Each structure stands twice: as C-alpha cells, then as structure tokens.
C-alpha cells in the first residue's frame, strides 16, 4: 500500500499554475483553460483512487483508520527539534477533504470554461485557480502545523488574487484587500499560537500532537497567563486563525465583500473549500483542543452558534443573491464549528465531530451548486440583485431545477444530504448544550425561509421583462450543475460514522427522530412562509420590514459591523497611530538630528566675534589665555 502517486496531487496543479502564469498568454486562452481543467481532472481521479484505496482497500488497522505519511521531506530545519517537513498525511478527514476539494474544483474549472469565456485574463484566471487548488490541497494533507500555516498563507493570497481578479474595479480591489488583511490579522493569531505550541511541545507534527501520548504537553503544566492556561491561549489563538479563514464572527466581514470576485471563485473558495479550512483546522487539532483546552472548545461552540444565527438573520434581508448565499455560508459554517465545539472524543461521544465533517462534505456540494446556479442566473440576466429577477424558471429550466434541489437540501428536507448531517449536528448540540440546540433549531427555520425567499424571488415572483430574453447557459456550465445536484442529493447516504470520526474508529449512528421531525417541520414552516410572502408579488414583505423598523435596518446593514471596522482601521490605526508615528519621525527624531546641525551652525555664528580682526584684542586674548593656562597648570595641577 503506497501512495507515492499522491505527490502528483500537489505537483500537477502547481505545474499548471506555472505554465498558465508564465507562458499562458502566449497561447490561445482556451489552451490554458483546457490545460488547467485536464490537470484538475487527473488529480480528481487520483483523489478518488486514493480515497478508495485508503478507505476500502487498506481499510482499518487495529480497528481504526491509521494516519499514513505518504511522503515527507525536510523543507527547513529551524532547530534540532523543530524541523519543517513538507509531506502528505492521509487520514480520514484529509482524504475526505481531498475528495471534496478536487470534485468542486473540477466542477468549477469546467464551469469556468463557459462562464469566463471571452474575459480578459482568461489564462490568468486559470493559473490562479490552479494555484488555489494547489495551496488548498497542500493545506489539507499537511503533516504538520507549520506546513499547514505555509499553505494557509498561500490559500489566503490566491483568494486575494481571485477576489481582485477584476483589478480595474475599485470595489473588487477594496474587497480583495479587506479579505487579505482581515485573514492576515487572524493568521497573526495562528502564528503566535504555533509559536506557543511549538515552544512548549517542541514539535510541529500532527501525528505527535494529536497522538494518544499527552506527555509532550508536560511543559505547559501550570504555565498560565491572565488566568488562562497557556494551552488555552494557544488553542484560542490557533482558532483565531481558523475563525479568520472561516469568517466566524467578528472576523466575518471580509466574506460578503469577497463576492466581488467572479462567481465560480465564490463557489470554489468562499463556499466549498477555503472557508471551511478553519473547520478543518479545528478538526485536525481536535484532540489537542479536547484534552488540553476544553474551554477553547466551549468558546468555539458559542462563536459558531452565534455566527450561524447572526448570519442567518442578515441573510433574510439581503437583496444581492450572492450576498445572501455568502451569509448562508457563514451560517452553515457556524453549524460546523458549533458541532465541533460540542463534540466529545471517541465513539458516539464524537458524533459532533463526525456530523461537522459530514455537514462540511454536503455543504461543499450544495453550496457550490447554489453559487454556480447563481452564476448562471447572473450570466443570464447580467445582474445579481433580486429586484431585477423573477419568473426565470421558464428561461433557465436546468438552473431552476438544480437550484431548487440545492434549496431543498439546505432547508434540510428529508432524504436529501443536508438532512442527515444537520440532524446529527442537532443531536450533538442537544446532548451537549440545550441553549445552542435552541439556537440551531431556530436557524434551521431561518435557513429554509431565506433560501426560499431567494428561490421564489428569482424563479417566481413578479414577471420581470428583460430587454433581451435570458437564455439557458451553455453545456459547460449546466453539466457541473447537474453533477453537483446529484452530489447534494446522494452525498447524505455515505456512512460517515463508519469513515470519518473523531478517533477514526467507526461507530453506529442512528437517526434520532425526536429531533429530526421537529427540525424538518420548522424547515417546512420556513419554506411555507417564504411561499406566502414571495410566491406572488406582494406588498407584505415591505410592510413587515416597515413594522420591524429599526431592527430591520440594523439587520439590513449587517449590524453595522463593517462601519465599526472602518472606524477602527481608518480612525484608530491610520489617524491615531500611523500618522502620529510619521509625524514623530519627521519632527522629533529627525528634528533632533537637524537640531544638532542647527546648534552647530548657530554656535559658529555666535562665536565669530572672537575673530574681530582687531589687533589689540588678539593680543589680549593671547595673553589672557596664556595666563589662565598658567594659573590652571602651574597652581591648580
């Protein structure tokens, strides 16, 4: 059982990146497009083979799925103990992520062939996509936390490049900048967390960190800062990194703006893969959190819960369809985080962990589907606000059907994939924390409501007449939709509890109808309300929003978080730190240097009287100084 081929999973996308980036513009655009897509297809195949081999050919060793180091080379030796390895670690979650990423990425590649046709910088787009795939894959198969950090940064930058793809659009530039800086700020926490962790444990290696042997944490015993144990600090700081990438409250602000990027990018990066990196990070470090920093896990669960509610609320009020999807992404990731937070370790205790991974998998499918669908809608109507849409079902049949499927899935309608995962999450929450369970229960309803608000507004609602009739997108775009639709229907039947679990030992998970049925019901209620409000064009929504008044405004303006950030950055950082520093440097530090020069010159001007040109005065100075010297040296010394 060797996985030597898995190295190609990293090399191929990197090669295509280099090719498209350096010489891509020399050829016809389609060439680079095809190269990128084919490359991705190949590694998708490889990923499936790997998954197959890992789960079903090699299978379990001693009742659990082993952590296989497929390949590992020393990249940089920092100290004798701390060496940065670049390698490939295969275990249930990384293999699962491989499958998810390659699938979605492949779909997006195909889709982009159609969607981006004729765009300026086609080859640039594909080289960036390859770069992203490369970094994301590198992230999930990291053997150690530092390798993860490396690819973490690369993911960040490729997201920056892709959001700012339309670089002559100022809003896009601003959005990309925001995304990068916010995540960078979060990464600072991650880095400091790594520093703490590596200082106390003297290792980066996941195998050691998440292994059963807890003795490596002996150093940390009793070390605490501001009343929290150092491991809690480390865990929280590392989670801060995760929260940044996964856009958890309050670091979520970059994600809605990130929708400035091309829609396939939103589908790939800001729905399916990169934004769940945070979840993946927590899952990857789960034993460390669970055994060393349980408080951190609690924090995570609350952050997740709050974010999911908060985002769902905002999603109900937005009109830009991509933003609605973005907020729903936030809310779903909140689910996953919460699930991890409430999870236990091992056996049925770890149902939350399993559920979170499960939901991650399904979410990737249906959210990518939703975004791609939104893309094809925008492609058709050249706008992405609901007001310009309505009754599109006639024009875009395939998009319509697939979109509907996705909406049903996310709404948790029975026997579609999300139904299962969401149920598991609710179960985990229920067992662990009733309050959070209640929140999630409510969010389930909200989700159903805003998704169908979206759906009805687009495909039903008022009969808009378009100056040129929308037409269904080309095959390159519709085929991925269908495939993903299949994915989001049937992904739920994968027996996750057999494959991806907290201690990688399978356990029996069973449907808990006590929780499933109410959640389905509340979902259906949400759908029903949406039906009433938005099926036909009606004045009711306005009236409701009026009646809610201030609250509605607050929600509509995303609780003014952006404004707060604006204030902090522009006013505090720029005006209250950078500007004074610049001033201080110019006037105080530099002023001192110039002051020295000034003093010299002035003193030279002031003593010029000594050289009066008058002979007797010369004589006087001469004699007096001679006498003074005599007094000093013959009598004082």
């Amino acid at each position, binding site marked *: 059982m060797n996985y030597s081929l898995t190295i190609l999973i990293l090399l191929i996308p990197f090669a295509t990146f280099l090719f498209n980036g350096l010489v891509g513009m020399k050829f016809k655009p389609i060439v680079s497009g095809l190269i990128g897509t084919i490359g991705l297809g190949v590694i998708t195949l490889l990923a499936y083979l790997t998954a197959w081999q890992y789960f079903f050919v090699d299978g379990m060793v001693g009742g659990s799925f082993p952590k296989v180091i497929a390949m590992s080379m*020393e*990249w*940089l*030796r*920092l*100290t004798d103990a*701390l060496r940065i390895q670049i390698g490939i670690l295969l275990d249930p979650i990384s293999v699962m992520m491989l499958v998810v990423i390659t699938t979605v990425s492949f779909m997006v590649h195909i889709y982009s062939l159609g969607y981006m046709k004729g765009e300026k910088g086609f080859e640039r787009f594909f080289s960036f996509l390859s770069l992203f795939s490369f970094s994301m894959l590198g992230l999930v198969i990291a053997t150690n936390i*530092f390798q993860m950090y*490396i*690819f973490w*940064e*690369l993911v960040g*930058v490729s997201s920056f490049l892709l959001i*700012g793809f339309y*670089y*002559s659009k*100022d809003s896009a*530039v*601003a959005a990309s*900048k925001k995304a*990068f*800086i916010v995540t*960078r*700020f979060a990464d*600072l926490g991650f*880095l*400091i967390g790594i*520093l703490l962790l*590596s*200082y106390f444990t003297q290792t980066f290696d996941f195998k050691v960190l998440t292994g059963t042997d807890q003795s490596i944490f002996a150093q940390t015993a009793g070390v605490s800062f501001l009343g929290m144990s150092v491991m809690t600090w480390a865990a929280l700081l590392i989670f801060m990194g995760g929260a940044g990438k996964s856009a958890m409250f309050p670091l979520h602000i970059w994600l809605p703006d990130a929708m400035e990027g091309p829609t396939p990018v939103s589908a790939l990066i800001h729905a399916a893969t990169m934004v769940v990196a945070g979840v993946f990070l927590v899952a990857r470090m789960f034993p460390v959190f669970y055994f060393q920093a349980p408080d951190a896990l609690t924090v995570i669960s609350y952050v997740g819960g709050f974010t999911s509610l908060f985002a769902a609320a905002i999603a109900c009020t937005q009109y830009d369809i991509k933003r609605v999807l973005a907020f729903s992404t936030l809310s779903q990731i909140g689910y996953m985080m919460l699930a991890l937070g409430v999870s236990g370790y091992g056996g049925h205790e770890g149902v939350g962990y399993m559920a979170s991974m499960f939901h991650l998998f399904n979410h990737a499918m249906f959210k990518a589907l939703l975004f791609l669908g939104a893309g094809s809608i925008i492609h058709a109507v050249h706008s992405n606000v609901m007001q310009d849409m309505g009754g599109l079902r006639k024009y875009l049949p395939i998009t319509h059907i697939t979109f509907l499927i996705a909406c049903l899935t996310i709404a948790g309608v029975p026997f579609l994939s999300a139904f299962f995962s969401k149920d598991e999450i609710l179960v985990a929450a229920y067992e662990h924390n009733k309050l959070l369970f209640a929140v999630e229960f409510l969010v389930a309803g909200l989700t159903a409501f805003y998704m169908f608000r979206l759906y009805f507004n687009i495909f039903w609602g008022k009969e808009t007449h378009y100056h040129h009739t929308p037409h269904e997108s080309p095959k390159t775009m519709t085929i991925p939709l269908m495939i993903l639709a299949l994915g989001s229907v049937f992904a739920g039947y994968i027996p996750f509890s057999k494959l991806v679990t907290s201690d990688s030992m399978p356990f029996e998970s069973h449907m808990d109808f006590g929780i499933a049925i109410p959640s389905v019901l509340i979902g259906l209620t949400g759908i029903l309300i949406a039906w009433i409000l938005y099926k036909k064009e009606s004045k009711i929504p306005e009236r409701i929003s009026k009646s809610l008044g201030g609250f509605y405004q607050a929600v509509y303006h995303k609780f003014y978080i952006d404004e707060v950030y604006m204030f902090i950055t522009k006013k505090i*950082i*720029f005006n209250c*730190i*950078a*500007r004074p*520093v*610049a001033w201080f*440097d110019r006037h105080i*530090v*530099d002023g*001192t*240097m*110039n002051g020295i*020069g000034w003093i010299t010159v002035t003193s030279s001007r002031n003593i010029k009287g000594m050289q009066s040109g008058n002979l007797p005065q010369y004589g006087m100075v001469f004699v007096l100084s001679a006498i003074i010297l005599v007094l000093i040296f013959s009598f004082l010394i």
Partner: protein
Amino acid sequence: MNILNLLIIIPVLTVIGIVFTKDFKGARVAAAVGMTLQLITAVILVISFFAQRKAGITGEFLFLSDFTWFKTLNIHYSVGVDGIAVWMLLLASIVVFAGIFASWQVEYLAREFFISLILLATGVFGFFISLDLFTMFLFYELAVIPMYLLIGIWGSGPKEYSAMKLTLMLMGGSALLVVGLLGLYFYSSAAGPVTFNLLELSKISFPLAMQRFFFPFLFVGFGILGALFPLHTWSPDGHSSAPTAVSMLHAGVLMKLGGYGCMRVAMFLLPEAAQEMSWIFLILATISIVYGAFGAIWQKDLKYINAYSSVSHCGLVLFALLMMNRTSMNGAVIQMISHGLMTALFFALIGMIYGRTHTRNIDQMGGLMNVIPFLSVAYVIAGLASLGLPGLSGFVAEMTIFIGSFQHPDTFHRVATIIATTSIVVTAVYILRVVGKLLLGQIREKEYLEFPDAKWYERISVVVLILPIAIIGFYPSYLSSTLLDALNPIIERLTAML
C-alpha cells in the same frame, strides 16, 4: 592568486576602464561587463567554497591570504571568507549587477556615475572579504563616501540636504567605530602584539569593564548603518533622494554592512557585553520593527514607504541577532539576504515606474497593471515577498527569526518576539495599500497608455533579482544549513559564558 583579491581587482580595473571610455554608452557597457565578471567570480567563489567545505576543510575562514602592510602597527591586508561572507558577496554582486542595468539610461555624467557606483561596490566587497579590522574600516568608509556624490549629483528632490545628512550620520557612526576599533586594537595586547586581525582578536577574552565600555561604540556605530532606531533618519531622506541604483545598492547591500558588522565585530568580539547589554538594543530594535512598519503606512512617496519598510526589516535583523541563538541569528542572515534582494527589487521597480510616470506620489498614480503588466507583476511579487508570502524568501527569513527568537528561555525576549510578529500584519497593510493604489484600479492618466513595458535591460535587472528570491523561498534548506555551520563559532563564543 587568491580569488578574493579578484573581487577587489575587477571593480578597480572596471573603474580604470570606464575612465577611458568616450561617452555614456561606452561607460555603461564597460560597467556591465565588469560587474558581469564580478558576478561570475562571486558564483565561482560560492561554488568552490562549498566544494572545499564538502571536501572536509574545516576552519572558520577559507581562502585566507595575508600580507603585512604597516609592520610596526601590525596592520595587515588579510582576507578570508566564511559561510556567511560568501553569501553576502554573492548578494552584493547580484545587486550591483542589477543596479548597473537598472541605471542603464543614466546619461548625465554617466562615466562619473558608474565610477562612483563601482567604487561604492568595491567598498562593499572589500568590507566582506577583509579580516583585518583596519582594512575592513577602510573599505567601510570607502563604501560610504561615494554615496554623497551619487545622491548629490544624480539624485532628485532635496538631494543636497539628504546627501549631506546621510553622509554625516554615517560618518558619525564611523566615528564611534574608530573608538571601538582602537579599543579592540590596544586591548588585544593582552595576548601578544596588538593586532586588528579578526581571527586573533576572536581568541582573546577581553576584560568585562573594557567590553562594557566599547560594545556600545561598536554596536551603535554599525547599528546606524543598520538603521537602528532612533538613528535611522538618514534612511528615508537618503533613499528617497538617491538615484535608483544607489537606493538599490544602499538599501540592498550597504545597510547589511551594518548588521554584518554588528554580528561579526561587535557581538562576536565582545560577547559578554553583548549578552549583558542586548536588552537595551533589543528594545530599540523592536521599536524600529513596529515603528518602521507603522511609519510606512502613512507615507505617500513610494521610496519613503520602502525606506521605512527597510527600517522595519533591518530592525528585524538586529532584533534576531540580539536574540543570540543559532536559529534566530540564522534567520537574521537569511533576512539580510532576502531583504537585500527584495528591497533592491523594490527600488529598481520604483525607479522604472518613476521613469515613466515622473512622480512617486501614490495618490497621483493608479491602474498601472493595465499598461505595464511586467513591472506591475514584478512589483506585486516584491510586495508579497516583503509581506512574507511562503514560497518567497521573506517568509523563510521571518519564520526562522520568529521561531528562533521564541525559543529564547527568557519571557522578556518572547514577549518582544510577539510584539515583533505584529509587524507582519502592518506590513501587509502598507504593501497592499501601495499595490491597490498604484497598480490596480482605473488607469489614472491618458498618457499611461503610451507607456512602454519593461525594456530588455530592465527585464534583466528585475529577473536577476526575482530568481534568487524565489529560489530561497522554495528551497531554503541549503542556504540555511550552510549558514548554521558558519554561525557555529559565533554562537559558541557568544554562549560560552552562559
């Protein structure tokens, strides 16, 4: 014939050659040829050095050669290189090479320009190869002085003021150095005849009182060139007024003389004092890291931005040196090299952009990505390198420094490290601000559309700088391991008394 002497002889011959050229075309060709030879020599040097190491020749310095100069004063011309110096020499030759091509279009007094530029380079090379502190100091000053003419004659903006300020401050630094060097020289009489020789000085353990007295002189003296807060103010003015190649050379190589000197002379020869006083300078270095980064945020002038970021990055070098463990010092040297390359790249690109837009104010530019993609992409790469993107040299350096410094047993040092890490965010802020304003967005002016993209010579100088950045970024372990070996003697001496 010792290959190291070639590194001095070639530039001198080049200067003589330039004297006999007719016009600016001849001058620049002569300069280019000379510096190409120099680069080749440096590469050969590196290869043969590590070939010898592989052959098992241990001995801190190789290619030693020594010739007595002033016998009664026991001053020698003695050269030799260790694993750090060879890399520094390679860096210097790369930057000079790029600098020549970056200043291809200098026509006003071109011969004088190239002559002074290469004299400056001679000083740098001499500094890195010399083992005798007297010759080292001689070359140091030789490197500083042409700067005045280069900035004063071919500079822009308030050039006389900046040139004078830069020269006087650096000379003030060397004033401190003279005192320190003489101290070392005369206290070396404890073991045999007085000497300036680094190797022999490194065998002596000086009395603590003497170390306490002279360490600040040496460290600050070199520190000024290393832009140690608050003595960094020559750097913004100097860099912003200097012509392209000079900024490249100065920020890229000359500022490294400071860090190198701090390590090689101040800390290496006076270890106890270094251990004892490190905390003072550590605080200063930490300040300059954060302070430089914040200072860069507010600037409008591209060169000011880079000058301040250089302050920040060079502060990181001193910071890491003062941590005094193998990893951090290793990181410091890598940072010197990486910062040398990327800041040179920055200044080269700024010069090229300025040559087209005739302004360096970022508020008056925008959308260059549409018109000069090559330069813009290069600029983005430089920016990413300087904000520490994995796969480029900056990341390697910074991470080595941070991890290394954080291994320090003392809490104070670890806290300082955490403060220093915040600079990576601030760096990201100002780099992205520049990239956003300058390259992205709408095309600002109509005449941008006539801009030609990079000419062949510009491409050469850009590519020659980007390549090593990427190579170090991708495959740092060779560089890092060689440096670790080279650092051993220094570390041993530093930690001997702990």
